[in-house]
């Protein structure tokens, strides 16, 4: 390599191509160097050392793939878990609401709490029937009272008539007395 010093100057001025730099690296790492250039070998040895450095963790790929797979699986896992949790909480909420609704709709019959709407309806209908039956009986009684009252008013009318008859007799008697 005849032009090595020129090429080295181009290298330090950042004007070399990758191909020229590859030539320089090869020359300084493998060739017998003149004493004036020997010191530059350390630069290229250093660069070569750095180029050959690799991750200390020999299981890096396995570790990172496990992390990525775990991350992906855990995403699906979390999705399933959260969906189940959401469904369960929805079921619980609706169940609670339904239960509370049922708890709020009740009736007390003879001190007994009835929550079943059908049973309550049947009992209510039976009670209603009983009430209407009693009402009708009561009404009949009231009608009887009405009839009694009617009779009583007739009696009072007759009594009034009698009083008037007595009065007219008294008047007639008074008139006769006066004529005499």
């Amino acid at each position, binding site marked *: 390599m005849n032009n090595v010093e020129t090429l080295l100057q181009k290298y*330090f001025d950042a004007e070399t191509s990758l191909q020229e730099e590859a030539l320089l690296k090869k020359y300084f790492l493998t060739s017998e160097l003149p004493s004036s250039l020997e010191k530059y070998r350390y630069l290229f040895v250093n660069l070569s050392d*750095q180029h050959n450095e*690799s*991750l*200390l963790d020999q299981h890096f790929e396995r570790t*990172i*793939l496990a992390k990525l797979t775990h991350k992906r699986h855990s995403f699906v896992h979390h999705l399933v878990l959260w969906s189940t949790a959401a469904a369960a909480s929805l079921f619980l909420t609706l169940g609670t609401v339904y239960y509370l609704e049922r708890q709020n709709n009740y009736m007390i019959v003879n001190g007994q709490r009835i929550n079943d709407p059908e049973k309550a309806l049947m009992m209510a209908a039976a009670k209603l029937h009983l009430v209407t039956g009693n009402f009708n009986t009561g009404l009949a009684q009231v009608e009887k009272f009405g009839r009694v009252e009617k009779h009583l008013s007739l009696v009072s009318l007759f009594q009034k008539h009698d009083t008037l008859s007595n009065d007219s007799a008294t008047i007639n008697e008074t008139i006769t007395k006066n004529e005499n």
Partner: protein
Amino acid sequence: MDLHQFEIKILPLKNNIYRLAKALLGNATYAEDAVQDIYLKLWAQRDQIEKAENVRAFCLQLARNHCLDQLRILKRNDFQEITDDNFSSERSPYEQAEQQDLVDRIKKLMALLPEQQRTVIHLRDVEDLEFDEIVQITGLTENAIKVNLSRARQRIRDLINGK
């Protein structure tokens, strides 16, 4: 991009990403942790990777951005430690470095370069990337990349020549 494609296309870049992370963070342990975080981010952005013109540039750009965020969080503590452990305040880093093996001194000098110079010399001289790919990764212009690269290389030359 499914897991299998990710495994074939993206996982082989793990050492490129690790080396860049180490160059930027200056610490192998931080770099190893960063690579895991970077891969989780890459997996999250796998749809964008598919659309990327240059997959390697996309991945290294994401890696660099992640490392720069980490550096802001770490406030360059690691680099401060390197400085404290290896160089006293009485002598310049270059003078102190002369007492060590030249390969180590070059490595330490590279770790002490400004971030853009550090990134550019790593991507060009360690990863052997073309300038247009470095443009995609760093967002710098090609001219800015060449300026940073020549400054970084010349600082190393100065160290070698004992300047």
